[in-house]
């Protein structure tokens, strides 16, 4: 987020209020005092809410587990040689044939649930965050283009956005996967297609306001290329709402991926995400073997709620109407 020095002032402008403040402070206070940049102010504001910090901490732990799953898991759940069918469907805390403890029990294949969840988190986060990121890039570019050029380009792009948003996300994703079939790449594609419109609409909304400001006019008078105006001048000023929507969409896309995988149209069985783990344990739940789908469910829940806690507070911090 740190802007290049030449455009620092421009970036400071819309998050607006802090900029004059900081200048006054910098003048009156001795030079040793740290200047309050928008970024620093944002961090201070964010730290106001213990709940949001807690969410961030929990998410950090989850991300750590997802990234380092192969090194911290007790067992490699994909390696069939490490599994023993005799260990199948053991209760949480029971011992395996060769003396290991399964803290969260095992599934029908004798797979350690904890390892399964660690690896599942990895896939869930990869698909969820990855698709949200790609959708962000696509949606932001199209939204900026629509707002900047206006006219025909704008109406064509926004027509597609409207049409897309009038169908429920789950339905569009289901349609795409019914046509393309299972697979991680297909799920990512489906999630990108259902999500880009949210970003495009958000960016267009704030870009429409920003593009009438003087600094855009100034940039145009300098005969800067459109690409540069779009991404170096317009985009940084549309970031705050985008960050909020982006955070919420990561949670949404993880939840949607889990739902699709639960329905059996998402990720393939060889690379189970949390949703697929839950689906696998579903049939055993009715016979009282709750842990096979309960613990992956808890992992999914904690992930989604922690992201939402952060996103909810980000919305308060970044909302210019709420700023003092």
């Amino acid at each position: 987020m740190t802007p290049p020095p030449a455009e620092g002032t421009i970036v400071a402008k819309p998050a607006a209020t802090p900029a004059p403040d900081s200048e006054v402070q910098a003048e009156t206070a001795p030079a040793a005092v740290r200047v309050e940049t928008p970024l620093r102010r944002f961090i201070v504001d964010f730290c106001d809410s213990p709940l949001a910090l807690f969410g961030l901490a929990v998410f950090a732990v989850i991300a750590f587990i997802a990234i380092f799953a192969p090194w911290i898991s007790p067992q490699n759940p994909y390696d069939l040689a490490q599994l023993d069918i005799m260990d199948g469907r053991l209760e949480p805390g029971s011992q395996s044939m060769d003396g290991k403890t399964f803290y969260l029990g095992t599934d029908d294949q004798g797979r350690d649930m904890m390892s399964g969840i660690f690896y599942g988190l990895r896939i869930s986060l990869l698909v969820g965050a990855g698709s949200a990121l790609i959708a962000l890039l696509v949606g932001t570019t199209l939204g900026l283009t629509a707002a900047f050029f206006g006219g025909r380009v704008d109406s064509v792009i926004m027509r597609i956005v409207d049409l897309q948003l009038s169908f429920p996300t789950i339905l569009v994703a289901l349609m795409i996967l019914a046509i393309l079939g299972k697979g991680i790449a297909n799920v990512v594609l489906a999630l990108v297609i259902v999500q880009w419109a949210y970003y495009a609409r958000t960016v267009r909304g704030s870009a429409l306001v920003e593009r009438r400001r003087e600094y855009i006019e100034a940039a145009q008078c300098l005969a800067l290329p459109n690409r540069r105006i779009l991404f170096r001048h317009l985009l940084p000023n549309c970031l705050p709402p985008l960050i909020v929507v982006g955070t919420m969409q990561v949670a949404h896309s993880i939840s949607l991926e889990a739902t699709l995988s639960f329905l059996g149209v998402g990720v393939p069985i060889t690379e189970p995400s949390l949703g697929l783990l839950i689906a696998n344990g579903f049939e055993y739940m009715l016979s009282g073997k709750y842990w096979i789908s309960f613990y992956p469910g808890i992992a999914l829940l904690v992930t989604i709620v922690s992201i939402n806690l952060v996103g909810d507070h980000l919305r308060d911090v970044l909302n210019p109407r709420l700023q003092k």
Partner: protein
Amino acid sequence: MTVYLIRRLMQSVLVVWVMSLIVFLGVFAIGDPVEILIAPDADQIERERAIIALGLDKPLWEQYFIFVQNALRGDLGRSFVFNEPALRLILQRMPATLELAITATLFAVVIGIPLGLLAGLKPNAWYSRTIMAGSILGFSLPSFWVGLMLIMVFAVQLGWLPSTGRGETAMLGGIQWSFLTVNGLRHLVMPALNLSFFKVSLAIRLTRSGVRETILQDYVKFARAKGLSPTRVIGVHVLKNIMIPVVTVMGLELGSTIAFAVVTESVFAWPGMGKLIIDSIYVLDRPVIVAYLMIIVFMFIIINLVVDLTYSFLDPRVRLGESKA
């Protein structure tokens, strides 16, 4: 108004046409229908005969033309699995889905509005905070997970409610309904509650913000000043004014409720349209997939049209000319 309606209808026809193209090309061109339709042990001559019989030797545009022609006559192909017309198969399952979706909407109104009222009247009370926190959960939790938890608690642990199927049904108007028998109702409660989870949160939010706005209005102050009892002020003057938008939005959400029924139906093995499409995707029953997608697209275009018209009818400030597609 008429001009607008005609333009909207033409737009809708265009969307249906584009969707039919996408669905047709997607389902029939990406995968190889020959592999699925013809037995793998068939010899070359049998294969060719079958390809000609199915019209798969014709160029793609001609196949599409035939598909559209048949579709316009209401023939969307025969299911491979059930060997029945796909359209009839889907229409047979539709009442079950509608029953579930309507019950869920009812739950949302019955549970959501009182809770929203409570949270709106005393925004800082502990129970209001709890209700609002709950509604955030309702928005963010995946609905299949909530369904699983309901099954775990009420079906497995407590054993109060059955977890799968529609139970006993009774005939009304030539259609089987679950809500007419006690056993059917017991089967209906959990899936409907699960499906309504998101809508309840929505109703809470709408009601709460409605109450907080209305309570500051002059007519509410006047009603109080007149010395009316608080129950009457809230029950008549406040509630009546917020009911219209809340109920309208809930009704208009019916479309997305039907879409999300796919998830609930899969969790609770509720034999509706959603379960059918998921089962068809598993066994690659293409005619059913195509028919379902076309019906859903058609249904949503009609729903969106009705939504736009209703909004402009309810709120004259919504200008029809600028309405969304």
